[in-house]
């Protein structure tokens, strides 16, 4: 393979380092022998290292039962039912058969287990595939041996070919490349899609066969640190007669793929579970929704109610027995199991009551919710409105437990780059030698022929500026580059600099046009812009850069690369120019570079002005400068630098110190401005979210001016909005901070009042910069800061670190008592995404780290409004309904037992229903309709919710108080319904039937049960607003419809087998009795639901909810534009009317700068 001689900057310096001594490793050291000689593979011999077998599956065939059951029973409700079932197994204790709890419990557990098996099956399959992949292992004296990945051992020498994944963490020994390099893609590891370059262990660079390696490595061993999770760090050494240091650039990590390199040979260093990728895969924190927290509380409350009823029953029995000592026909109340009056009997009766009414806690609730949420997630994944066609990315639910929280989000914490903005950078303006180019280029470029390969709609509109182009052309024609051996005119220097000073790696594309691989999109934009203007970066290798300047080839020798990092905020490249001079090219953040300029302050003021103008236009700026170095100066410095770069202790700090020494006395060339294009639909989305009462906070690493300008352009800050700033300089010490915070808070209140006076509500925005944020996040300021934030319509935090993003998220989450959603696309958002209640990852250009950490992932920020306003709101309403309904139906059902025993059967814990009925209630007759409801119900249509985001507020504002208020209404109806369905059939059926015969207790129980089933199903029916055929089928066809045949069949069984004696003949009898149909089937359910219906009707008419009003509007207007128009006027009074197209102009308006 003819490799493009290119090299990324990352390892360039280190590659030149070899044969150096290094300090011995500190701490625990792993010693790895190189296993080149065939040795008997004794399987029984226990190795000190794990095998290379990797298991991501949760269960094995044998462990499944134990682990799964353990997990399921760590859920308190399941444990509770297990406890009840255990009680029932005690002979003579339980009033009901043990099957009544075991059967539903097994049903519930097996649904969950089935889901787990399904999930794990795919993991097993992929595990099997991965572990059985094959790779060549080199052994002295024979051909390479094919070996499965799982059989690899530490120290094995393997040969990996192009486009294969590395089977373990390998020490890179050799490749066909002369320099001993190879390319790897780490997308699976850290999500970065650009290729990275790795260096081999220099001594074995030329070895291609086992024999050569044996010669080179013979007698040597590898010593390195113990396994850890740090992806970018590795310390080790090959130890033979001397020690040769190794670092992360010599290590090929499992999970990454070999690219563009024919093959590599490597030695296994970490295998299996020790590999860095496995060390990095930790379980994501389990998130619990607010509804679930309320639900767990509710379980406790209901449990308490149940205990009360049981205790009351136990005491009641004692009293009853004392009064009924003449009931000789109930003889035998002397000892276990039937005690007479007294303590033992009371305790036993208490337990019996607990068993009898245990289903007051709905056994099927958790599993129903699980099923429902999975189904809702499918609908999320299927939603075409959240599918991004350009990238073929559908919405993805990565967590199936958080749906209803989406309906209660109060804070959206958003990253900026890649989330609100496209992360497509356009090189738009440049300030060169005191001139600002590119500002008007789009307007005037139309009549010019752009250069070859430049499109008019290029994001790099700088290339369209006619002034700039003539300037370049004129100068180049006047002074031929070649003669002068370089360029030193301002414009030429400027673009020459941009083409050289970067870490962009060109590779040959079609038509000989270079294709750029860049780590930073800003750099890519600058290089592309320069290319369009005739300064083309052609090739880059370890020690050379090849340019084509206005058609002429220029070669530069690279002497050193001083990398960019967020602390340095700058990068430099030191080159030897064709004329032999050494020059340092440096570019970086304005503050950093400006402070490093030498005495020649030409154009400094003009450039500063331009920088301000750029920043306020929402553009990202970089300052470009250079320095000429003399041979002596360079050599002296390079010695120091080299030493620093090969040091094993505090290497980073030393390198930084060295770099700092040379990046001084710079000469200013100019500044670049890169436009960060907004994502599609961002202003509209943010508008919608704020109409829904959701507060959007932007957390960005950008500087203050950029952040503010983007906030304006993306509608976070509205026209006419006042801003309050918290700046780092005001927070340098505690007393100052206190004063500044108080002042800011006063400002916020004052401005809010002022804004109200002119008719704007909460139209105050807060801008906090990273330094100030660090202070206000301290415990003593947190509350004050947060209460101030709550008053602001929007908060922007700029210059924040990833850690601060997570801290802000935690603050909102824990202190504000509200649901916070974090949304971001980059690895720096992972902390925020994981600590927020809901983490949303944008699958964008910055790799998949955010997506992998997220609960939901999608392609575009604009889908957020549909996710929250439509799906979130639906999910919240549906799932709340599922929870409420579960408690309602079980309460309504179980109370008959209480009435029977409290008022009729002498507290004897006689069950109202027989075993067959108890065991099937939750699973068969009452679960499907609520599941169908939770999957299909739409109280209002999606279009309505998108047009009227205000509807979101109803659900958002509900907290535990409204939860319990609504619950008490549900339980009130449960109580009323239970009385009706108990009394009506009981008293209608204790009289003689037309043939003079009478029904018994069994039949009455079945009749009451029938009434309960019909009532609770009708309850779902009256609450359903969206009747699909499926709803009708499960309510009428299955739950109610199948009950009658079921009852009939059960009644026949006794004829043939000795099962269900209590059902024998009951249905046949009941069916022939008119009073049964009139009471249990029609009367009681109809009367129960009449009460529900009338309450709903009165409320809907005379105290309508917002939802109800929009249901009426849908009915009246249809879901048409007419309604959207009508609703959009509803908020006109709230905020200043926005002018269409205004969002394009990002200048801050009336910023109240303190």
């Amino acid at each position, binding site marked *: 393979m003819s490799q493009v001689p290119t090299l990324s900057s990352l390892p360039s310096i280190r590659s030149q380092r070899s044969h150096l001594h290094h300090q011995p490793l500190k701490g625990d050291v792993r010693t790895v022998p190189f296993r080149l000689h065939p040795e008997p593979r004794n399987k029984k011999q226990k190795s000190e290292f794990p095998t290379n077998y990797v298991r991501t599956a949760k269960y094995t065939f044998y462990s499944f039962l134990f682990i799964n059951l353990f997990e399921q029973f760590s859920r308190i409700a399941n444990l509770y039912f297990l406890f009840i079932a255990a009680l029932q197994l005690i002979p003579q204790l339980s009033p009901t058969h043990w099957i009544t709890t075991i059967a539903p419990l097994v049903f519930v557990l097996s649904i969950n287990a089935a889901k787990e098996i399904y999930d794990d099956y795919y993991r097993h399959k992929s595990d099997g595939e991965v572990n059985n992949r094959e790779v060549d292992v080199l052994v002295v004296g024979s051909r390479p041996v094919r070996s499965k990945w799982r059989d690899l051992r530490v120290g094995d020498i393997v040969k990996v070919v192009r486009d294969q994944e590395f089977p373990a963490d390998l020490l890179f020994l050799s490749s066909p490349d002369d320099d001993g390099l190879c390319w790897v893609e780490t997308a699976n590891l850290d999500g970065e899609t650009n290729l990275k370059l790795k260096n081999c262990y220099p001594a074995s660079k030329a070895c291609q066969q086992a024999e050569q390696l044996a010669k080179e490595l013979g007698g040597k061993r590898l010593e390195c640190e113990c396994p850890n999770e740090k992806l970018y760090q590795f310390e080790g050494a090959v130890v033979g007669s001397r020690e040769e240091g190794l670092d992360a650039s010599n290590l090929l990590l499992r999970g990454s793929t070999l690219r563009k390199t024919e093959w590599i040979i490597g030695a296994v260093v970490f295998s299996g579970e020790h590999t860095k990728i496995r060390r990095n895969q930790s379980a994501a924190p389990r998130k619990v929704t607010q509804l679930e927290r309320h639900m767990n509380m509710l379980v406790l409350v209901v449990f308490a109610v149940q205990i009360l009823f049981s205790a009351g029953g136990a005491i009641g029995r004692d009293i009853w027995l004392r009064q009924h000592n003449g009931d000789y026909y109930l003889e035998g109340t002397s000892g276990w199991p039937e005690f007479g009056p007294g303590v033992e009997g009371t305790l036993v009766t208490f337990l019996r009551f607990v068993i009898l009414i245990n289903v007051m806690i709905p056994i099927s609730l958790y599993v129903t919710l699980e099923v429902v949420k999975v189904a809702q997630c499918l*609908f999320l994944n299927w939603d075409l409105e959240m599918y991004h066609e350009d990238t073929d990315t559908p919405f993805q639910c990565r967590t199936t437990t958080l749906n209803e929280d989406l309906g209660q989000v109060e804070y959206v914490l958003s990253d900026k780059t890649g989330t609100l903005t496209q992360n497509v950078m356009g090189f738009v303006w440049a300030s060169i030698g005191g001139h600002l180019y590119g500002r008007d280029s789009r307007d005037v470029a139309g009549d010019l022929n752009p250069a070859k390969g430049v499109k008019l709609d290029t994001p790099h509109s700088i290339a369209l500026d006619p002034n700039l182009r003539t300037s370049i052309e004129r100068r180049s024609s006047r002074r031929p580059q070649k003669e002068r051996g370089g360029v030193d005119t301002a414009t030429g220097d400027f673009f020459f600099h941009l083409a050289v000073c970067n870490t962009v790696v060109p590779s040959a594309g079609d038509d000989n046009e270079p294709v750029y691989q860049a780590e930073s999109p800003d750099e890519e934009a600058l290089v592309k812009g320069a290319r369009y203007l005739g300064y083309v970066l052609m090739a880059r290798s370890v020690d050379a850069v090849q340019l084509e300047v206005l058609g002429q080839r220029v070669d530069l020798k690279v002497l050193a690369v001083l990398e960019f990092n967020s602390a340095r905020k700058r990068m430099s490249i030191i080159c030897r120019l064709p004329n032999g001079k050494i020059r340092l090219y440096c570019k970086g953040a304005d503050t950093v570079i400006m402070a490093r300029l030498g005495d020649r302050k030409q154009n400094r003021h003009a450039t500063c002005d331009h920088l301000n103008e750029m920043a306020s236009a929402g553009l990202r700026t970089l300052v470009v400068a250079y320095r000429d170095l003399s041979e002596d100066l360079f050599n002296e410095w390079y010695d120091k630098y080299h030493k620093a770069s090969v040091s094993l202790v505090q290497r980073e700090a030393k390198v930084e110190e060295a770099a700092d020494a040379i990046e001084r006395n710079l000469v200013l060339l100019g500044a670049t401005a890169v436009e960060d294009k907004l994502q599609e639909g961002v202003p509209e989305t943010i508008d919608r979210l704020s109409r829904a009462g959701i507060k959007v906070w932007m957390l960005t690493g950008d500087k203050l001016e950029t952040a503010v300008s983007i906030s304006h352009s993306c509608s976070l800050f509205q026209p006419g909005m006042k801003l309050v700033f918290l700046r780092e300089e005001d927070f340098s010490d505690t007393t100052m901070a206190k004063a500044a915070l108080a002042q800011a808070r006063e400002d916020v209140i004052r401005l809010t009042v002022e804004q109200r006076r002119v008719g704007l509500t909460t139209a105050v925005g807060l801008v906090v910069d990273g330094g100030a944020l660090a202070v206000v996040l301290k415990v003593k300021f947190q509350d004050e800061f947060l209460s101030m934030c709550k008053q602001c319509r929007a908060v922007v935090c700029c210059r924040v670190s990833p850690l601060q993003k997570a801290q802000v998220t935690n603050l909102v989450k824990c202190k504000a008592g509200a649901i916070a959603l974090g949304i971001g696309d980059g690895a720096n958002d992972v902390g925020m995404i994981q600590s927020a209640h809901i983490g949303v990852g944008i699958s964008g250009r910055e790799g998949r780290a955010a997506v992998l950490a997220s609960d939901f992932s999608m392609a575009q920020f604009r889908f957020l409004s549909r996710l929250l306003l439509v799906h979130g709101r639906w999910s919240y309403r549906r799932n709340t309904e599922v929870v409420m309904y579960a408690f309602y139906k079980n309460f309504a059902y179980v109370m008959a037992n209480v009435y029977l025993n409290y008022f009729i059967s002498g507290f004897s*814990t006689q069950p109202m229903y027989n075993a067959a009925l108890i065991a099937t209630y939750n699973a068969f007759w009452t679960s499907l309709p609520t599941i169908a409801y939770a999957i299909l119900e739409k109280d209002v249509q999606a279009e309505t919710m998108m047009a009227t985001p205000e509807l979101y507020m109803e659900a958002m504002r509900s907290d535990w108080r409204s939860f319990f208020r609504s619950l008490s209404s549900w339980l009130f109806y449960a109580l009323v319904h239970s009385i009706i369905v108990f009394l009506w059939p009981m008293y209608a*059926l204790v009289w003689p039937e037309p043939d003079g*015969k009478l029904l018994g207790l069994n039949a009455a129980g079945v009749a009451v049960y029938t009434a309960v089933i019909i009532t609770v199903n009708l309850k779902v029916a009256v609450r359903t607003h969206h009747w699909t*055929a499926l709803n009708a089928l499960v309510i009428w066809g299955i739950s109610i419809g199948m009950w009658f045949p079921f009852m009939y069949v059960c009644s026949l069984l006794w004829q043939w087998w000795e099962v269900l004696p209590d059902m024998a003949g009951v249905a046949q009898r009941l069916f022939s009795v008119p009073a049964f149909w009139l009471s249990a089937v029609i009367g009681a359910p109809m009367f129960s639901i009449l009460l529900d219906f009338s309450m709903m*009707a009165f409320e809907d*008419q005379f105290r309508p909810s917002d939802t109800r009003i929009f249901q009426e509007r849908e009915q009246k207007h249809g879901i048409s534009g007419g309604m959207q128009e009508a609703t959009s006027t509803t908020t006109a009074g709230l905020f200043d009317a926005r002018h269409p197209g205004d969002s394009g102009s990002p200048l801050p308006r009336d910023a109240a700068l303190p």
Partner: protein
Amino acid sequence: MPTMGGAAEETPPTKLRKKPRNSRFTQQNLKAWRPVLTPVKVVLVFMAVALVLIPVGVACLTASISVVEYSSRYDNVPECTDRANDNREREQKLYQVGGDGFLCNVSIIVEEDMKAPIFMYYELDSFFQNHRRYVKGRDDEQLKGKNRAASSLDDCEPRLFQNGSRDKVINPCGLTAWSFFNDTFRAFESQASNTSELGLRQKGIAWRSDVEHRFGAYEPQNFNNIPELRGGGEINGLVRDDEHFVVWMRTAPLPTFRKLWGIIDRDVLQGSTFVVEISNRYNTYRFGGKKSIILSTTSWLGGKNNFLGFAYIVAGGLSFLLGTLFFVLHLSFRRPLGSEDYLSWRRSG
């Protein structure tokens, strides 16, 4: 390790492989009926419900009123208790007498024509047939005629072994059978001076399925023979053939219950008198339970039972009232359908 994602392709995918299916179901767009109840519809529903419930109630009530039912308590009638003064004395005398107990007559004057069939019931009061211990005190398989080992008859305790001797398993065992009601009745019609015995049919009084499938055709063993300790009496013949026993074994839901004892397949007209000859044996005196004799006809709905009719009329009436109230309120507080003025963010702002 599961591989996530694929190679980074720079070119936009030509085939949209991951595009979700566009169907009514996946897009949550299934055809649906979305009822929204406007005030007029609400009133109509209320009135329609009233219109259905009230006539049904009236029909039920009419049926119930058409039933002729006479009842007479006899446990405290002096002739039936040898003129004892209180329950303790009555109980003592009952045990002293043994055998057929006290014979006595109770007369009921027929004031309305009673069409055949006329059902005769006995009614017990304060008798907890619905008590858990009582309900479970049986073994259904044993009753079906299956051979059951004593070890599987725990539920029958304490009436599992006769006199506690382990080789004498009671069959049918348990409290329910043990306390079998054993008063017997004969009915006479007395017109003017003419008295004739009415045939009391005692077959076909139990559920047919009970007689055919639930109870076995077998001789009872070791059954009740200790009058002092029992409320109950013996089973006549095979278990399934004693329909009084079968009826007794259908335990009643309420502590006051009646059980069918016999059927008179003849009209009894106004002016005649029922004379019921009772042999009073069953001990309810210990717990103060009342015993009554009831004669009743039935309608299409069954016996005399005003509850169902009233319940329907109350429910229907309530629906009517609510509908009216709704209508009046609607007229006084008209709210235009879908009016924005009532939106929460409009009201508060």
